[in-house]
């Protein structure tokens, strides 16, 4: 309930006061620089991707996408996302719940730990799995004795993907849940709801848009991850190649149309993600936490 008197002291966002407004040429130069920069480094490459993909006509494009290896790469990417995103949703909700609603020792440590994948190079996270599960690795012997294959197979790719994507959902939910506090849950419990009912009917609906936002970013990263997956996949065509890996292989074989055709799918995914993200921010900006833009 903002007092109108107080409100009028807030800076005006629409029309800046004269004192902080630069002269017209300066404004043009500043805005021009930003736009040229974006055009050269973002827009141009995007256009090139689609241009190269369609360089030999739409027929070559669809043919490139319908090859068995390409189809298998697409299937694998979808499978990996379908496993790792739900797991990260479960992990993200529990981590955010624990951090936002309880006081416990090691909370700051847990918060820092969640950010780890952002600060570690994906290649290293891949290598960690090689060191753990590889033939000469810590658990290598035991795994081989029990006939479990992780490295250079789908489980390894899923693990590496989960590692690099697990901050997305948690990071989105923690500030949101912290801001909302425990009041609604306490109200639900006092009305006789069990812990599970309070979570299902009250907590989850309160964070649903933030959650969706996190899932969107998590999914985009899960499908696009290259470094970590590259280390653990073994690049076996038709078996352990995801879309980003497949793009590299095709490109190295001078199959430009094939490489850019698959790349155009990933670029398309990025564009769809961007549009959905913007829509979510526009409609539910207040309900999505302030920490944006990973």
């Amino acid at each position, binding site marked *: 309930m903002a007092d109108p008197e107080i409100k009028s002291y807030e800076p005006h966002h629409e029309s800046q006061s004269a004192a902080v407004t630069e002269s017209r040429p300066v404004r043009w130069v500043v805005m021009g620089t930003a736009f040229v920069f974006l055009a050269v480094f973002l827009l141009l490459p995007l256009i090139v991707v689609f241009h190269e993909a369609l360089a030999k006509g739409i027929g070559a494009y669809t043919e490139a996408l319908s090859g068995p290896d390409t189809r298998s790469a697409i299937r694998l990417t979808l499978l990996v996302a379908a496993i790792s995103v739900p797991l990260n949703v479960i992990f993200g909700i529990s981590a955010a719940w624990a951090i936002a609603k309880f006081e416990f020792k090691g909370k700051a440590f847990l918060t820092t730990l969640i950010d780890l994948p952002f600060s570690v190079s994906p290649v290293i996270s891949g290598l960690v799995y090689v060191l753990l599960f590889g033939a000469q690795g810590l658990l290598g012997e035991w795994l081989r004795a029990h006939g479990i294959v992780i490295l250079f197979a789908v489980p390894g790719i899923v693990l590496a993907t989960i590692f690099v994507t697990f901050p997305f959902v948690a990071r989105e939910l923690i500030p949101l849940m912290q801001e909302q506090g425990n009041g609604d849950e306490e*109200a639900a419990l*006092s009305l006789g709801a069990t812990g599970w009912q309070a979570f299902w009917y009250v907590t989850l609906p309160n964070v649903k848009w933030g959650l969706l936002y996190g899932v969107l970013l998590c999914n985009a990263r899960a499908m696009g991850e290259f470094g970590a997956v590259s280390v653990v996949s073994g690049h076996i065509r038709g078996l352990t190649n995801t879309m980003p890996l497949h793009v590299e292989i095709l490109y190295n074989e001078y199959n430009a149309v094939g490489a850019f055709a698959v790349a155009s799918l990933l670029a398309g995914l990025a564009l769809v993600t961007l549009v959905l993200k913007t829509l979510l921010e526009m409609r539910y900006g207040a309900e999505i936490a302030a920490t944006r833009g990973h």
Partner: protein
Amino acid sequence: MEVRVANVRKEFERFPALHDVSLDIRSGELIALLGPSGSGKTTLLRLIAGLERPTRGAIFFGDEDASQKSIQERNVGFVFQHYALFRHMTVADNIGFGLKVRHGATRPSAQEIRRRASELLDLVQLSGLEKRYPAQLSGGQRQRVALARAMAIEPRVLLLDEPFGALDAQVRRELRRWLREIHDRTGHTTVFVTHDQEEALELADRVVVMSQGRIEQVGTADDIYDTPNSPFVYSFIGESSSLPVKVENGEVWIADRPIGLQAPHAPPGEAVLYFRPHDVELLDGCSGCIAGTVAASRRVAGTRRVELEIGGERQRVEIELPVDHPAAQKSRVAFRPRRWKLFPVS
């Protein structure tokens, strides 16, 4: 439902928030927990609700020990300062929530829940707003919905945490009267927390004055206002003035003269005299009175506050006079408190 708080102590991280507090709440009573922030009033309310567990002591609902029970089992209606309405549910769904989450045979049918919700909306005078969302309501309306939601589960005790704290003065006064009416009609045993003494004294059957984790005094508005039992209650409730005095031969003295107040039971020695600034009688001559020079005089609403300097030590004390009283024009005023109390020097 009678509620008995027996020797309850509550510590947060070894810091005591309540020291051995005991309190008997009568069935059907409307009782206020009043105190400054940090006095432990909200902690006491949350302990009764089961939102916190006592470090020591027990809380009884009737004869049964409620402190061993979870908040769900206690069946209390809790109203939060910031309403805590479920923002994605309509008003009707909010009110029906407590019934909807019941299990098995105790859960009423959807139709029965709807009927009950609209009945309660009638009670809180918000009929017709069933389909609205909390964001579409004013602060006062939200608090009414919160109360209806708490009453929907037919609670054994109704607990309200600063229920009007987030509302503006006008709405506050209105809701205060309305809450009293609802209480008289439904007869729930009700405990509410407030830091607003006017609210507590006007609304409650009895007031519990708290300070620093302890109960200072429990009583009706008249008890609390007219016979405060500690310097804290004297200064926290209403206006008060105090003067350092001496007790000798069963009489109260300021410096070297008696002021005409008999205190046969007070222990001799230093003490502090407390009285209400408006509860004084003005005297003409001065044989046995408090006399002082007028140091300042201010007009406050319907009265005039006069600040006097007393005796050689120039102790300042405030009294209240009617606006048109001739004494206000004089440079010296003599008075004697009508109702007063002595407390040992702290």
